[in-house]
């Protein structure tokens, strides 16, 4: 059955690789949120050209596989003289990808804010940008947090794809250790366990955040 000796011996290596997975996830999360926010605002802009740009971004990302997007950035861009290296390429692909999904989530949140909120803000002399920033967005993001959290959990799991562009994160570390130990079952089991820890912790923290927001508004 399980070779516990291997597990005990190699677990620290995988744990260390999990740190890189976490780092990639957090940076992609941050930029993915910004991309999503900008794209959502573009899609809701009164300007037709801006709407088109936002719509195109969301459409192209959501209608193509993440792996192809990743390869396009890592293998394709250098041909045009843009060589971002594995880390930047990985983070950019992940951020662009999760950003497109965040855009739809945030747009939904913005639309869900009752029109009376914007009217009240405007009637107080707030301009469109100020009203969006101070009144509409804070409410929209609160509404969007469960779905954004879901996108984040998906993002964490998707980071395993960057193992294909030589980023030695959790999945690639497991693969390499298999090369020297010939213990694929133990290694992938540990990797799966560590992904589960990451995603579950994220879900629990997000759940706490949701409850706190709910309490604050009581």
């Amino acid at each position: 059955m399980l070779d516990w000796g291997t597990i005990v011996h190699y677990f620290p290596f995988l744990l260390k690789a999990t740190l890189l997975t976490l780092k990639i996830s957090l940076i992609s999360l941050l930029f993915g949120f910004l991309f999503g926010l900008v794209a959502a605002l573009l899609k809701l802009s009164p300007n037709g050209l801006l709407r088109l740009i936002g719509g195109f971004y969301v459409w192209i990302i959501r209608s193509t596989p993440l792996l192809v997007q990743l390869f396009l950035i890592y293998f394709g861009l250098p041909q045009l003289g843009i060589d971002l290296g594995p880390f930047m390429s990985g983070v950019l692909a992940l951020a662009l990808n999760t950003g497109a999904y965040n855009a739809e989530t945030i747009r939904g949140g913005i639309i869900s804010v009752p029109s009376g909120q914007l009217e009240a803000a405007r009637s107080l002399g707030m301009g469109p940008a100020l009203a969006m920033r101070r009144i509409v967005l804070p409410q929209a993001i609160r509404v969007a947090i469960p779905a954004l959290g879901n996108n984040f959990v998906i993002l964490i799991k998707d980071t395993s794809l960057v193992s294909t562009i030589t980023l030695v994160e959790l999945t690639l570390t497991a693969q390499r250790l298999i090369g020297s130990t010939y213990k694929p079952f133990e290694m992938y089991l540990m990797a799966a366990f560590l992904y589960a820890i990451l995603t579950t912790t994220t879900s629990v923290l997000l759940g706490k955040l949701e409850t706190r927001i709910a309490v604050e508004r009581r």
Partner: protein
Amino acid sequence: MSSPDAESMQMIEIHNLKKNFGDNEVLKNIHFNVKKSEVVAIIGPSGSGKSTLLRCVNHLEEPTSGEIYVEGVLLNDKSLKGRAFQRHLNQIRTKVGMVFQQFNLFPHMTALENVMEAPVNVLKETKADAEKTARELLDKVGIAEKADSYPGTLSGGQKQRVAIARALAMNPDVMLFDEATSALDPELVGEVLRVMENLAKEGMTMLVVTHEMGFADRVADRVVFMADGYIVEEGTPAELFRNPKNERTQKFLADVAHADV
């Protein structure tokens, strides 16, 4: 651009106002003035265009044609475009307070923060000044003790009083009320009407769309009856309520009287 009647201290002047929603003519050629410190009540059946008229006065609805002057300044100034027009609107809106039927308090802010929001971010008052004014206003509308509560915890009457304080914090020259008490439980109507009555006594110019005929009779200087997008009849409360000339006014008042019994 200044208005034709700028000399006469009109707070609001409306000339030839028309508003269509698609094919639906909601306001048909409205002429209408409000003097400084005047309290005007607008009454009329549902769908007659009362809210639309009120919302045109701070450009929440864009008139299809006609002119609206606020303190002598043309609101829908077609010579201004884009950002210049937004700035123009914002400037006028700081002088026109609006209170909505559904309160529209900002749910992610406490009562105090709701009241401070626009003075700090629009008028650029310091937080300390804005908070001082906000607390005074909350006290004035009788809910100083709810300053740190979120709207979700307040009753309808309390919410509406916060909303009035929020509008007053901009130090407006005119206040618009769109059925401010219609969403309230009957026992909470009085507390809001009292706040409005006090404002009127202090000389605030007020344009009040209401179904509270008693309030209109007691507080308004003038009552305007609207039907089908027209101003059908206007006059002092005594004239309009006790001696209505127009048949439609008579019928409306009779219907309302029956509903009250």
